[in-house]
């Protein structure tokens, strides 16, 4: 049986790992290489690293830091942030990452997703969608431009059509709040898709991850819970296992 993945998600800013609260205030949580080493030794299912500076400031992909992180990882590593070209994806994969997470560029150009998945294969292309609620409606959120008049489901379906391998779905409202994932959002998107959905934003307790899987998540990503609580990825898996969810390595 295919297992449900528990994926630590870490943010990179000025060579440090940080964690955001509702995408706004950032707290430094350690050195990227040592964090990667710890996650590797804890035998996590996968690791997602997003470079937030790169996407905001049009900065070049920092391949040096990606190489350092990749050297510590013998599990799948996804890198995202500031990806603007096919060349960027080459660079990231050559630095040792396995997948890339594309956000802003994908909103601008669906053809870019198609081109990337043709060259690198769908398995390599994660499309990341940030969502914020406005007047009761889910809308796509962009770090630079704010709320966009785009329905996240419509966007997800387009990404799927153009060759995305997975969707990383983040609720900006729930991010860092520890109140749990936005399950309504998850159901809204997931039930229409045939590619896997990784839910992100809001996990504060193992039971939140259980709820996410019960509501259709193929994988759960989380940051805050691992950096600022006593819970480890294994605690989450234990809770999932106790709820009859297939997980790896207990």
């Amino acid at each position: 049986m295919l297992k449900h993945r528990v994926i630590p998600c870490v943010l990179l800013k000025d060579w440090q790992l940080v964690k955001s609260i509702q995408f706004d205030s950032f707290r430094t949580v350690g050195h990227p290489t040592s964090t990667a080493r710890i996650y590797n030794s804890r035998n996590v299912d996968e690791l997602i690293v997003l470079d937030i500076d790169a996407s905001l400031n049009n900065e070049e992909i920092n391949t040096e830091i990606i190489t350092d992180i990749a050297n510590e990882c013998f599990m799948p590593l996804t890198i995202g942030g500031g990806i603007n070209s096919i060349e960027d994806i080459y660079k990231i994969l050559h630095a040792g990452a396995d997948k890339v997470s594309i956000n802003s560029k994908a909103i601008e150009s669906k053809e870019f997703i198609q081109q990337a998945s043709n060259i690198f294969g769908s398995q390599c292309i994660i499309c990341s969608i940030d969502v914020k609620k406005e007047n009761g409606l889910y809308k796509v959120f962009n770090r630079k431009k704010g709320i966009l008049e785009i329905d996240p489901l419509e966007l997800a379906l387009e990404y799927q059509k153009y060759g995305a391998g997975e969707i990383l779905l983040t609720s900006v409202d729930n991010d860092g709040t520890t109140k749990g994932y936005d399950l309504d959002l998850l159901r809204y998107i997931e039930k229409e898709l045939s590619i896997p959905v990784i839910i992100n934003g809001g996990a504060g307790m193992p039971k939140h991850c259980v709820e996410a899987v019960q509501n259709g998540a193929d994988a759960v990503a989380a940051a805050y819970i691992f950096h600022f609580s006593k819970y480890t990825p294994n605690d989450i898996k234990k809770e999932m296992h106790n709820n009859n969810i297939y997980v790896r390595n207990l």
Partner: protein
Amino acid sequence: MGNLRSVQKAFEKVGAEAVISNDHETILQAAKLVLPGVGSFKDGMKHLKELELIDILNQKVIEDKTPILGICLGMQLFASKSYENGETEGLSWIDAEIVKFEFNEKKLKVPHVGWNEAKFNKKSCILFSDIDNQKDFYFVHSFYFKENENVTIATTNYGFEFTSAINKNNIFATQFHPEKSQTDGLQILKNFWES
């Protein structure tokens, strides 16, 4: 393409010396070969052709019997043909076809992404030394290897049992990524290197 560096550093981790190369002389002199790869079958074959590697590989693998390990797309390229983006002929070392996962009723997601068990049906294979049966390995693929000559050494369940590892003489391959499968994955690379 793509994850070459991951494979190289995983081999380094288990004490092997691995060189990334498309140079004919380097390949001809190698004690062992690894053909990794992500991306599409058609692109994979196109690159092998453009780099004029097909004759070299046939000589090394079929005539000289040099051990080779195919990983993911690398494994699929060993087959006769693939139906990914039309029909493409492969290296044809194994009588097999590469077919897409299609699930209508069961609603399983494609690609098959994540950790899944490898059930050994040939535990004696050198690749599996010191690895327990039914351990999880990392998969990420939309097409699977449908073989006709009984070379399957492990299967994995995703809607049905599909071939997740093969061995035929000096030819070894895994659909999953040993380089991304932590301790058990590294052990497979070690077994291949030390065999």
